[in-house]
């Protein structure tokens, strides 16, 4: 029984690998959640056949919202829930050459996650380079689940939703959500951050940026708009000025915030899809100088 089970598992693995290599359509990929998105982005970057990248965006979950369809020439190595330091570490350890990096400045105090980066480069992860079936975006149940959520459940849940909702009273958006979270965030954003901790974070960042620059990478900073009520509170204001002290505008380019700050967020800090796309166009215009259409 044991031998048969082992052979079955091996056959399934070989068949699935062959399917991915030769038969699967390009759309045969899926992600379950943000954490998996992080792994997929990192794996695709590390195992890419390209030796160099022209433009790479590094940031937190805020930058994950950028519309990459509008930026086909860029690679978004922003990790939700992580620091930009993790993105830099991935670049440095991958050995890939990057000409320009765009670093989000919103959350410099977020610490790096050494475990995350170490796991990506551990020997146990190495087979993923050659065996695509082991990669996170090829997990069969993730793909089935993604397809399920797009077809079957929309019909089922819509029907249940219709049955449970009071007629004529349907409201698809949690209206209090954004306001409540923005209120909570405004309290933390109003507090002046610990200057020494902020300095320590920026010192760490500068050390890593120095390593990137030694490899010929050019660094540009940008700040993503959050809810208008938060942008000029104590914490982001101090962070903004400290960034300019550690990375002076005479040496580094800082993409300014857009003139109009009426960006709509889903929770106070993450832009909704439409406004993320709007900001992406602004960002693209700033980087490439193309006029906004």
């Amino acid at each position, binding site marked *: *029984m*044991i031998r*048969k*089970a*082992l*052979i*079955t*598992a091996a*056959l*399934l*693995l070989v068949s*699935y690998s062959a399917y991915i290599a030769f038969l699967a359509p390009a759309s045969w990929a899926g992600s*379950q*959640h943000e*954490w*998996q998105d992080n792994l997929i982005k990192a794996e695709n970057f590390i195992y890419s056949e390209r030796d160099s990248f022209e433009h790479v965006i590094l940031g937190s979950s805020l930058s994950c919202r950028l519309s990459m369809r509008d930026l086909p020439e860029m690679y978004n190595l922003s990790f939700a829930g992580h620091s930009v330091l993790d993105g830099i570490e991935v670049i440095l350890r991958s050995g890939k050459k990057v000409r320009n990096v765009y670093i989000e400045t919103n959350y410099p105090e977020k610490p790096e996650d050494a475990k995350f980066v170490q796991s990506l480069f551990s020997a*146990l992860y190495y087979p993923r380079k050659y065996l695509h*079936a*082991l990669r996170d975006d*090829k*997990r*069969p*149940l*993730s793909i*089935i*689940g*993604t397809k*399920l*959520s*797009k077809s*079957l*459940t*929309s019909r089922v*849940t819509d029907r*249940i*939703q219709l049955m*449970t*909702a*009071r007629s004529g*009273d*349907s*409201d*698809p*958006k*949690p209206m*209090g*959500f954004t306001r409540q979270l923005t209120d909570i965030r405004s309290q933390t954003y109003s507090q002046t951050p610990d200057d020494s901790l902020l300095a320590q974070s920026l010192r760490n960042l500068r050390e890593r940026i120095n390593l990137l620059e030694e490899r010929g990478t050019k660094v540009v900073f940008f700040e993503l708009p959050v809810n208008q009520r938060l942008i000029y509170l104590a914490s982001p204001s101090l962070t903004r000025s400290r960034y300019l002290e550690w990375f002076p505008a005479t040496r580094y380019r800082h993409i300014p915030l857009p003139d109009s700050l009426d960006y709509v967020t889903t929770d106070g800090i993450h832009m909704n899809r439409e406004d993320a796309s709007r900001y992406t166009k602004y960002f693209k215009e700033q980087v490439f100088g193309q006029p906004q259409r």
Partner: protein
Amino acid sequence: MLFNSFVFLGLLTVTFLLYYLPVLQKYQIQVLILSSLVFYGYEKPALVLLLLASVSINILASYFVTYGDERYRKLSAVLGVVLNLSILVFFKYSPLLARTFDLTSGSLGDFLLHIPLPIGISFFTFQGVSLVVDVYTEKYCKNTDVVPASFVEHSKRVLFFKGFFPQLISGPIVKAHDFLPQIRTKRFGEIGWESAFKSLVTGYFLKMVVADNLKDYTFLIEYPFFQFHATLNLLIMMFGYSCQIFADFAGYSLIAIGLAKLFGYDFKDNFDFPYISRSFREFWKRWHISLSSFLMEYLYIPLGGNRKGRIRTYVNLMVVMMLGGLWHGAAWSYAVWGGFHGLALALERMLDRGRPESKGVAVKALKTLMVFSFVTLAWLLFKLPEFGHVIAYLKSIAGNVRLEANNTLISFILLYSSPVILYHLLYLRKRRGASPLIQRMEYALYGMMLFLIIVNSGTPGDFIYFQF
């Protein structure tokens, strides 16, 4: 050290090789003790000292009960149990007691609130209690049969019994009378490979593919995330958590059972398809069996069980279940959780008195659904230890009817919960007599589980029962 880490795999391989090496055959127990201490102290070596202190109490108490002065037998046993429980209370319940009796200010409060919770203490303490009580009562075997006259030999066996790594940090709670008689030299040829393989593959599948994937959705049950989810999401998340907690703990127990088999030791089943239960009584005979049988043998029966009248029986049930709840965690919500189950058990006993069991399929199915729904609802107290948050969650279920359901969340929870449902359905099918096709294709099922462990494991998470 986690069972699903590569460091553990390394430790297991080395231990296994040394254990069956013919020249080291005389030292099998020593090999396992050493390996267990490495396993336990890997992240916090200081914990080994606590384990050794706990083991020392049990060595002395059980030895004095067996070979000490007859006049002090009872005293030795009582002292052994009290000291075991004192260690547990000190490390596990000090912060709760400090908060309850408002001792949070000053240096004493600060000290009590910051006592760290050593991993596995609830499990190895209960094992220690079982040793002392078993040798005192001699209910299952003569105490001289399990406590050798040589103090050194006895110490070695007790350290092995409490420290054996498969069950050390999250059970199953192995009882002295089940384990100690198994200690002898084991041979490689005696390994039950097939049952070990089945336990390990099913256990790792339930943990790594089911529980570790479900946890990435059920974390939304936590406060304040749940408030902004639609009623349908909230209900599905509760269902998902019910499947996750089963997959996590039953998975862990199966891994422990499989690992013990590799070294020639048999642990009793800890889960027996609990979600098919048609009564609360049946549920507790199928869920975390090692704990419920421990509570039955060492608490409910000594309290009088059902021998002292109806009212006393109901009181005993409530007391045992509330204490069982508190065993899980140092928060009153766990006692409330236990109380809920105690109340359900008592009510069920009251209502079922003298009533013949219904044989209709629909009634049976309805009963199963009712027990499952109650159990699932009660798990909220596990996930949300603050009682106010549980109420808020229930309010959100009632109030968020108009919010839009999240299809992705629902489909992934249903997808990753489906193996738990299938697992129970297969059992029901087997109980009615397994079809020859299922029997013939059993290997394919295990092959598929292995394949999914390789390609579809979730991000590793701690086992839920580690916190207890």
